[in-house]
């Protein structure tokens, strides 16, 4: 009852100052030493903040140390002495993109010239609609995507400087927040923002150097794709299919370039937070976007060609499944009820055999030629056994047996416990396995709770003081 509270400093760090002052007023037995220790630390911090917020010192620290330091690093990485490191490779990238664009436009002229020839107005119209318009749309898409890549390449270098300027300008608002336990994290957020912004230039230089090296054989002067464009432009007449093929390559390269350049701040973020979640999610969203666009175009094509939808009444998409009537049959791929014309709605009902469709690896199917997917568990329990487990196991092992419909007869926890108590070794192993899983889950839950307590230090966790007593 009268003990000290050794954890009070960490657990009550949120509104600890005023709260502890009140506590001290009512209970002199609280840790005075801790209180005065914190006070000394705060005073020291306050004096550092006061010193830091003087204009000359702040400007020197932010500009000369952080910004210039990362800039020098970037210059060293690029092995250049220019004022803005990385501009050489950036110019090379821009030049490549401009070459692509000029190639597209130059080739477009030739495609236009070669189309629409002939005296028949109907053929001219058909040609205009099918080739001319298609080529124009593709050329427009290439031009827009190349412009986007160029904008992102320039933006990757601008945005770091802009963000650093914003962070540096607003710094005097955030620096004093380090004195408050509750608002301290905003100071660290600002500091991290500043570091990441400054490092964006460094990462941008490295990424642009890598990209320039990787793309030089393709898109640089004399590169393969550039060469194709040159030959298209130099050709006297041009088939629009050739144009579309080369334009597609340009689209792919420009999209890749634009995406990687757009990821520069994400990569920097990942570098400073030791997590690649942002990059992964960015990749996922980009792939999802591309997939959506692709699926939209496929749907358009399908609807134009009146193709039946997969799985629909006319759809003959093959599916791999098991024959539902014979569960002990080899795990071979066989036509499903869906493929045989069963409507999708009927196939999706819980009682339908299609619900038990299971994809198995080829190796597993070869090794378990005479057992079904569920019996394979029993076969593993009894090494060397290649016959059905339900036929060989003792009566206690009936917990593995299945009913006519294929569902386990005894799939409850109690049945498993009962079988284990009756001496079934397989059931015993299953129980041990279950307990190990439960222990792991419990441990994981404890870790999660501890992490949550750490991340919510402002909230005094109920009962912590009582626990220590």
């Amino acid at each position, binding site marked *: 009852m009268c003990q000290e509270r050794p954890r009070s400093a960490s657990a009550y760090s949120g509104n600890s100052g005023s709260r502890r002052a009140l506590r001290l007023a009512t209970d002199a037995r609280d840790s005075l030493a801790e209180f005065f220790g914190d006070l000394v630390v705060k005073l020291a911090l306050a004096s550092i903040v006061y010193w830091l917020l003087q204009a000359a010192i702040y400007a020197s620290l932010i500009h000369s140390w952080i910004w210039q330091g990362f800039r020098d690093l970037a210059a060293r990485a690029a092995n250049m002495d220019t004022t803005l490191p990385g501009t050489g490779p950036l110019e090379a990238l821009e030049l490549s993109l401009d070459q692509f664009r000029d190639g597209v436009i130059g080739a477009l002229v030739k495609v236009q*010239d070669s189309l629409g020839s002939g005296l028949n107005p109907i053929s001219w119209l058909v040609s205009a609609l099918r080739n001319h318009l298609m080529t124009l749309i593709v050329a427009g898409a290439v031009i827009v995507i190349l412009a986007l890549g160029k904008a992102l390449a320039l933006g990757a270098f601008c945005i770091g400087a802009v963000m650093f300027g914003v*962070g540096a300008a607003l710094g005097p608002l955030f620096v004093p927040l380090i004195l408050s336990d509750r608002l301290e994290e905003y100071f660290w957020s600002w500091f991290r923002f500043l570091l990441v912004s400054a490092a964006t230039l460094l990462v941008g230089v490295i990424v642009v150097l890598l990209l320039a090296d990787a793309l030089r054989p393709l898109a640089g002067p004399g590169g393969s794709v550039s060469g194709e464009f040159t030959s298209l432009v130099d050709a006297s007449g041009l088939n629009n299919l050739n144009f579309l093929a080369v334009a597609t390559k340009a689209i792919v390269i420009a999209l890749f370039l634009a995406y990687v350049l757009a990821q520069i701040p994400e990569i920097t973020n990942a570098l400073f937070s030791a997590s690649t979640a942002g990059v992964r999610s960015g990749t996922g969203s980009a792939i999802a*976007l591309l997939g959506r666009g692709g699926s939209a175009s496929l749907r358009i094509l399908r609807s134009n060609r009146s193709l039946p939808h997969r799985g629909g009444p006319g759809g003959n998409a093959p599916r791999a499944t098991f024959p539902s009537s014979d569960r002990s049959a080899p795990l071979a791929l066989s036509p499903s009820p869906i493929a045989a014309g069963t409507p999708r709605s009927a196939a999706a009902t819980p009682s339908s055999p299609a619900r038990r469709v299971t994809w198995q690896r080829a190796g597993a199917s070869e090794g378990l030629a005479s057992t079904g997917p569920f019996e394979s568990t029993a076969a593993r329990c009894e090494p060397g056994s290649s016959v059905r487990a339900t036929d060989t196991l003792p009566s206690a092992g009936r917990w593995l047996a299945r009913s006519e419909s294929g569902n386990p007869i005894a799939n409850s926890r109690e049945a498993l416990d009962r079988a284990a108590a009756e001496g079934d070794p397989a059931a015993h192993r299953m129980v041990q396995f279950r307990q190990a899983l439960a222990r792991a889950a419990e441990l994981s839950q404890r870790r999660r709770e501890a992490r949550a307590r750490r991340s919510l230090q402002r909230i005094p966790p109920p009962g912590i003081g009582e626990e220590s007593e």
Partner: protein
Amino acid sequence: MIDVLAALVSPEFGLAALTSFLVYLTPASQALLVAIAGLRIAWIASACSIPGAELTNLISELGWLIVRTLLLLWLLAQWVWLSTMALEEGPRLAATIVGTAASPEQLATKMVAIAARFSDTTVFGTLDWVAGVDAQTPFVSAPQTEEFANHANWPAPSAHLLTALVAILSAVLTQAVAAAGAMMIALPKFLLLLCLGVGPLAIATTVTDSRRARAFVEGWAETTASAVLALPVMAILVVFISNAPLPDPSIASGVGDPSRPAVDVVIAFANDLALLLLVGQLLFMVLPIACGLVRGRPPSASSFFALALAVCWLPLRSIRTLLSHRAGAAR
């Protein structure tokens, strides 16, 4: 346009609506706060009566609760004044950071000047130019002649079609950038008004000490801080873009010149588009940068990239929608 943007940025915009809203919400929040505090006091009092209760702890808890409740009640009573101050502080802070050239009107003028580089005169001038060029007969001869090497002799219908497409795209993109600028001015303001409107409720819930209430208050505080910081961020961005050596729109140089080859117009459009996308990307970053400053996570251009890709896929998606409508009508 300048008037609209200046009105959006000015501190008076939305203040009347916010005040009239707060007239109802603030007393309700005060009542909620008093009710929660009363419940907690009753709880502490009942805990005191339990044998073996730590009286010192409970009394300190009670004292802290009363002090905090009084503080929050005072805060709620002053909320309208605090909201006004928060609305005024954004422009004032922006002016302090970037100098005197950041009054709402001047900021709006600068924003409009950025968009006006790609003005409607340029765009519609290009359309005029397309209409004014002499139409030629379509090519029907074999393409193996000298004139195909000369871009100036591009078949007129194709040149007209492509240049008209380019001009229309330029008009759309110019309007899109102008709209992005206006949205980037308006969005933080609306967000700030919303946060200030919800503020009394968030403040009242702080006294509960529950984890969810604390998460709500933290989210509210971060969003409010982002919205307050958005205007200074925008001012810095606008000053940065205004001072950057951006080239003039190259498409403008050909307006009124009927002898200009259509290829040059397309190349000029591509250059202008890259510049326009760069400006749009920077303008798009206002709220993400403010938000990243508070959360310590600088934004990337991925969202802008995704937006641009979505715009690229827009024709395909539109065709798909049209086709599905057509299929539905046929059924």
